[in-house]
């Protein structure tokens, strides 16, 4: 027992010693330096996850708190020469406690206000996994950890199980086995000024689409068999193809006449194996039944090339492509030859063939990546991702792509998002005012005129004017003008940062003590040669 007490005493003396103070101060300093460089390279959130909100950074702060507290108690009872020291260290202790109170029970979020729409939803900076049963309306939330790297969660959340959480991720292409009609191509579109690689897939299961818009140009990805049709000229421009046999032909080649309906729309009938198929090509690519419903079971489709002659449209069929050339009014078909790029008729663009696959389709699978920051902006790895298991299958969801699953009769939606806090009152933005520096587009100030309506209280709504350095305080919460976003053509929406800080009085008091104490200790302390004025006087000969 005595030995234990002695050990405790030794530990206490060590924690309160000057040497320990120096070690912990320099150690904490090095951690901070590391944090600022991580922030610079990988962004604020990653730095927070890796350093500032990590257990070892918090732990170091706790050790500092211990060191300060014990150093103070070891120097009791009060000595007159140490009054400055007591005040400084008491100030530090209060600041630490205040910060802890804020950390445990403070609220720090943001409120987005769209003009004219009341809102009471504060977004808190805490990641959550949300599972909602769409049939019952019941939702379950799971707070996600502040780790910097990927986390194995293995937590059951309602009907699903959260397996993994990636706090920062990017997607990687993975190939899955599909049916023969699943074709995918990868190309590079470039001219002297820009270049853009893109992938397109015919598979409905793929994360890549079969049509794409790049500026004024629209690119369509089509089955390979259509190339032969597209490159031939036909007066009507109508092509018909058979999904089962992979055959295609222009209507002219089968001598199919085009009629007009009473309303003037084109109509045609194509007879195959004694069966009539009626098409209204301006209306639908599917044949139309007698009762004017679309026949989705039919293997035949009609395609009107005429619709794609006005604007730049590029059709790609794997290793071939076709487009309409306005000069000469002709459809042109081209094939990729080894190592040769195809010149397109728009703005000196060329197309390079990169890859083509058949019987497979690509899906985007999230993988963990350390975020990259450039010029103050995170350019890679901003999306968060989670691997979820439901009904024996595994799914990925990301912060950008939620997922809804059908499980028997129940519909379950899953999402990654931020924690939301509902205020018991509503705030609506009446007017947003932005002044600009004369002759420029730089904002000089932004101000929000808002209305606050508290349902718990009888009476009228109150009007408030919130601007930079002039927050709105209500019911313990403080609303600061933080930012804005464009809304519609000319208007703006406003973003407030919302704050509740019960540790504030302690921190302020601590700060005042700290400043007063250091002035006392370093500047006006007497009876000690180390003090400022003392040292001024002592050597002033």
């Amino acid at each position: 027992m005595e030995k234990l007490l002695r050990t405790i005493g030794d530990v206490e003396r060590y924690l309160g010693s000057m040497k320990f103070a120096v070690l912990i101060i320099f150690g904490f300093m090095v951690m901070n330096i590391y944090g600022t460089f991580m922030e610079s390279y990988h962004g604020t959130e990653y730095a927070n996850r890796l350093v500032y909100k990590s257990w070892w950074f918090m732990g170091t702060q706790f050790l500092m708190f211990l060191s300060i507290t014990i150093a103070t108690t070891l120097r009791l009872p009060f000595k007159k020469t140490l009054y400055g020291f007591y005040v400084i260290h008491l100030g530090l202790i209060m600041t630490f406690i205040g910060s802890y109170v804020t950390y445990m029970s403070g609220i720090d979020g943001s409120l987005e206000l769209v003009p004219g729409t009341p809102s009471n939803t504060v977004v808190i900076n805490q990641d959550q996994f949300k599972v909602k049963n769409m049939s019952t309306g019941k939702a379950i939330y799971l707070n996600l950890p502040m780790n910097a790297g990927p986390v194995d969660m293995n937590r059951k959340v309602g009907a699903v199980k959260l397996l993994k959480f990636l706090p920062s991720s990017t997607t990687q292409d993975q190939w899955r086995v599909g049916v023969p009609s699943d074709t995918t191509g990868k190309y590079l579109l470039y001219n002297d000024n820009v270049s853009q690689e893109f992938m397109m897939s015919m598979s409905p299961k793929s994360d890549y689409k079969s049509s794409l818009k790049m500026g004024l140009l629209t690119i369509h990805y089509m089955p390979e068999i259509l190339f032969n049709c597209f490159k031939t000229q036909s007066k009507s421009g109508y092509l018909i193809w058979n999904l089962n046999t992979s055959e295609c032909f222009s209507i002219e080649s089968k001598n199919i006449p085009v009629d007009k309906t009473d309303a003037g729309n084109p109509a045609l009938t194509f007879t195959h194996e004694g069966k009539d198929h009626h098409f209204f090509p301006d209306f639908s690519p599917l044949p139309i039944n007698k009762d004017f419903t679309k026949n989705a079971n039919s293997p035949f489709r009609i395609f009107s090339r005429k619709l794609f002659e006005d604007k730049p449209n590029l059709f790609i069929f794997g290793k071939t492509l076709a487009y309409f050339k306005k000069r000469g009014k002709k459809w042109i078909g081209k094939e990729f030859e080894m190592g040769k790029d195809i010149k397109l008729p728009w703005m000196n663009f060329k197309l390079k063939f990169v890859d083509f696959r058949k019987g497979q389709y690509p899906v985007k699978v999230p993988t963990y990546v350390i975020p990259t920051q450039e010029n103050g902006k995170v350019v890679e790895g901003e999306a968060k991702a989670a691997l979820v298991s439901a009904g024996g299958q595994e799914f990925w969801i990301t912060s950008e792509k939620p997922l809804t699953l059908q499980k028997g009769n129940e519909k379950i939606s899953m999402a990654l998002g931020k924690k939301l806090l509902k205020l018991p009152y509503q705030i609506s933005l009446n007017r947003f005012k932005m002044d600009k520096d004369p002759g420029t587009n730089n904002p000089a100030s932004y101000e929000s005129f808002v209305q606050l309506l508290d349902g718990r209280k009888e009476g009228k709504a109150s009007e408030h004017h919130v601007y930079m350095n002039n927050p709105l305080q209500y019911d313990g919460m403080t609303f600061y003008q933080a930012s804005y976003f464009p809304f519609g053509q000319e208007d703006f929406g406003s973003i407030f940062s919302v704050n509740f800080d019960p540790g504030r009085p302690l921190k302020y008091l601590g700060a005042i003590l700290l400043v007063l104490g250091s002035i006392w200790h370093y500047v006006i302390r007497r009876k000690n040669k180390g003090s400022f004025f003392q040292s001024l006087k002592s050597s002033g000969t």
Partner: protein
Amino acid sequence: MKLILLLLTLSTSLYANNICTSNLEALAVQTGGRTKPYYVMANENIKFIVGKSKYNKMDARELFCRLSFDYLEPSNIDLPIKVEHIDTKKLLGLDAGATSIPASAAMDKLPQLRSEYQKQKFSSSYKKDLEKVIMRIQNLDQIKLGAVWKVPKFRDSQIVWHALKDIFTVKDQLSNATEELTQMDKKYIETENDDHLLELRYFKSHLFGYSLAFLLTAIFLLVIFKKTLYGLISIGIAVAIQLVAITMRVLISGRAPITNMYETVMFSGLGALIIGLIIYAVRKDKKFVLAGSAYNILCLMMMIFANNMISAAITPLVPVLRDNFWLSTHVTCIILSYAGLALSWILANMALFDLRFRGATEIKYYQDLIYTAIKAGVVLLAAGIILGGVWADYSWGRYWGWDPKETWSLIVLLFYMGVLHGKNTPWINNKRFIVLSAAGFMTVMMAWFGVNYILASGLHSYGFSEGGAIFLFSFFAIQIAYIFITAFDTKMFKKS
């Protein structure tokens, strides 16, 4: 034939000739969100494009004017566009030794520059130089279109700023353009103010240059001729000149003189000298005056000769900084603390020099001098950080957010707190204390410049420039080398 061509060019720029050789420098113009004198606008633009304010025997005033009227009368001036990066030079087909490309050639290469810029996926000094060259070409293009120079025109007794091209639409109007411009300016002064005239006087008087001359004289008087009184008088004049200059700047900008790199350098330089003088008044030790003057000289040199890195231009503030009370208290405290720490840094380096090369042995005495300066710096720094926290709490509801500028100011405080605590342990003796004080200023430089020039992200961005990073690394290298040279064989590793 040549003569005819010459006559032709002369006759085409006849009007501009008259306008541009007259005295325009005091005219009020609007640019970059402020009203300025013409002189300042012309110099800022030409300096940005060319890298200096003269070309072909014409000064910035004349160049800018002739180029501005180019849309009516061809100026025939092929301004050289500044190019810095070696790869940009290669792209433009220039020699490695070339520093510029004629504007006409640069204009043809603009699409190439743009596509090269687009191709750079990651931010690099090459990409930044490309961007700058493109901006220079565009800036010149805008000037030549008559779009940059904006003059005050009255409509319904209200000023509306008009670009030159909207005032003078045909060549014949130029015959009395000088008078018209002067009239507009007169009316502007009558109804609004003549603040821009003060700015003209401020920029033309080169007060900081004179102050530098007086300080250099003072150092000579104090060190070589040992004339303390005359030295102090010279320093007094230098301080007075800087006070006048800073006051003028405050009156022009209407805010505390601590809102960008240039101003913080200016303020800390004077601050350190004044702190040095105050300590001297009590302690009667000339070393404080010498250290303050030396630091002030470094700051003034930076302000005068490193204008590419720290711009002297007065520009509008970002909204969050537009609070004069908090801005003046928080930033003043921080900058004065840097001044105090700078004083300790100079003293420490002086001590290292004396101990190594001049046979000085009074380590305790030097330690004492440095300690006095550090204490002043640390108290101000702690107060400044706390004031910053209070301002942040008051402005955006966050006392502390681990923003790089905040964190680095804390790192500086932690470093000096570590050293001050360590003084009471056997780890840091007097000699090591001096070495650490000399090295410690690197943390200040990192917090002050490094966050902007190297880390360059976060809320307190004053702007990034490539030259800044080079400057900072050179500073670190020189300081470390100096410590090695002066402190290595003087038994610093032995306990005292």
